[in-house]
């Protein structure tokens, strides 16, 4: 028992249940962490909700604004993502990461000219983050450019403390644009960094499946074990199991 627990101070707040030991304080960093966990679980809706809760606690938390935009992009709501990025840009003017996210929204919405313009704008700013270079890689890959993998390397180099997240995102971006062999390298590291992340396992499984590797089923199984009944993983698992020997050999030979 705390020896000062019985002392009474006039200015002291009455102890609340929320601050009881063992239960985390529900502040902005807490919801931000929850959002990150939701992202690692591939649950974009929950991630978005948690980013919003984090922002309710701290409007100045840039990572939450950025996370909201990314969640909207993951949900396929590209125009909304752009609107929200514009809103965030009012609070963080000319922030390269927000511009990069607008570029991602545009490129996934098949607006390549605008995407390139946003990416150019983002790259021209100071203090670039890994997200800027990953978005650049995505735009370049969509335009069938040859410098995409250099951009990915640069992003990973700039990853710093969040290099594990960067590797996972790099793998996802490469895999999304059909560069499975390159993506595999990053995703294998990502599952070591986040062994309990269904997203990492799912992406690895998808990549392995596209390359005709036999480990695909095990990776997807792991993703489904961590997040049971995840529709994407279930669909991918079905596809992987249905792929015949010829298809797997074909993918093995021609997969890149």
């Amino acid at each position, binding site marked *: 028992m705390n020896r000062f627990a019985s002392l009474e101070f006039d200015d002291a707040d009455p102890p609340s249940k929320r601050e009881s030991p063992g239960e985390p304080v529900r502040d902005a960093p807490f919801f931000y962490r929850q959002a990150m966990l939701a992202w690692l679980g591939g649950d974009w809706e929950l991630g978005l909700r948690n980013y919003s809760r984090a922002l309710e606690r701290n409007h100045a938390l840039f990572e939450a604004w950025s996370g909201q935009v990314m969640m909207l992009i993951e949900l396929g709501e590209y125009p909304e993502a752009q609107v929200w990025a514009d809103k965030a840009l009012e*609070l963080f003017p000319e922030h390269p990461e927000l511009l990069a996210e607008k570029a991602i929204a545009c490129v996934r919405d*098949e607006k390549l000219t605008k995407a390139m313009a946003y990416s150019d704008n983002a790259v021209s700013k100071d203090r670039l983050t890994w997200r800027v270079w990953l978005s650049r890689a995505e735009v370049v890959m969509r335009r069938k450019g040859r410098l995409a993998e250099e951009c990915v390397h640069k992003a990973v180099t700039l990853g710093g403390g969040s290099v594990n997240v960067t590797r996972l995102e790099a793998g996802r971006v490469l895999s999304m644009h059909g560069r499975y062999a390159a993506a595999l390298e990053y995703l294998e590291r990502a599952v070591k960094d986040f062994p309990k992340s269904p997203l990492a396992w799912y992406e690895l499984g998808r990549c392995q499946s596209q390359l005709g590797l036999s480990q695909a089923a095990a990776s997807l199984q792991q993703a489904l074990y961590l997040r049971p009944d995840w529709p994407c993983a279930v669909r991918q698992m079905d596809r992987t199991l249905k792929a015949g020997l010829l298809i797997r050999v074909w993918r093995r030979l021609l997969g890149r």
Partner: protein
Amino acid sequence: MQCRRCEFENMPGQTACFQCGSLLSAESMDIKVEPPRMALWKKPWRWFMRQVRATRIIPHPKAGWRVPGWCHAFGIGLLGVLLSVVPGLAHVVRKRFRSVGLYLALWGAFVFGLFFFYGGFWGMVFLGLAVAMHAWIAVHAGLLEEVSALRYRLLALALIAVVLAVLYREVGRWVLQDITGGHVTHPVAFHRVREGDFVLVRRSLACEGHLTRGSLVLAPMAAVYGQYSRGARGVIAQIVALPGETLTVEEVPGGGACFAIGGERLEIDRYPVPEWLTMKGLSVTVPKDHFFLSTAFRTRGAYGAADVARACVVPAAGIEAKAFMRWLPVWRRGFVREVE
């Protein structure tokens, strides 16, 4: 208070960074933190539009798509041609509303000129101007944004002009199916037509009841020795003898010749004899369902009555149209009168 983005040290209590404008603290600010969400019904539409953009119906070469250059140019060119068909449409699409009236007025003037001088030199000039205007719009609305080299621009302009000229011709034929025109080679004083005049003819009048003696008709005249200047193409000729009649050419006192039907002479100013037919002893009997047509031909060498009959006796079904209006020159414009 240090800005996390630019690391500028701001004064305590500031909400935004003095250097980069980023938000530092927003405790007192009322900021909406719930992002807008997509309505469910928009999802399939957006997916469809994304697919349209992804398939690049009009591919963009700068976007890095591996689409052949000619394919892209063709797509852009086709779009331009389609937009240029209706003058002003391309400007409406491009939201250049001020230009719409100008282009419409110009096009209207050119088309009016084309119809007013149809069949003559100035008609061709106005046709060329109208086509050039379409081509200009087509190139401006399509290829000019993509093609920068002058030679390619000129080539595109020429190609589109040819395409549009053909389009104009076909549309004109389709719209004016009944009416066409022909040049007069044989002057007829009664009809006030001279060599080189352009007359309008109507196909619907080339039928029994409308074809009388003296009518000007458009017919493919067979060639005598194959040496006629206009060959077997349609020429404007005058009906002189009707089915079953016997036509002769007789000398006139004082020089010249005239047609005679069954021994009865026809008036020279109404039925002038072309120079090449002023031969003595010409006598032709017109078979049933045939007409004797007279017109001027340039001929070479000797020919006889049998050749003339072959050239000038035309089956009724072969007469394409009947003249109804003198069109050019403008000062002689008027309707063609019936002789009988």
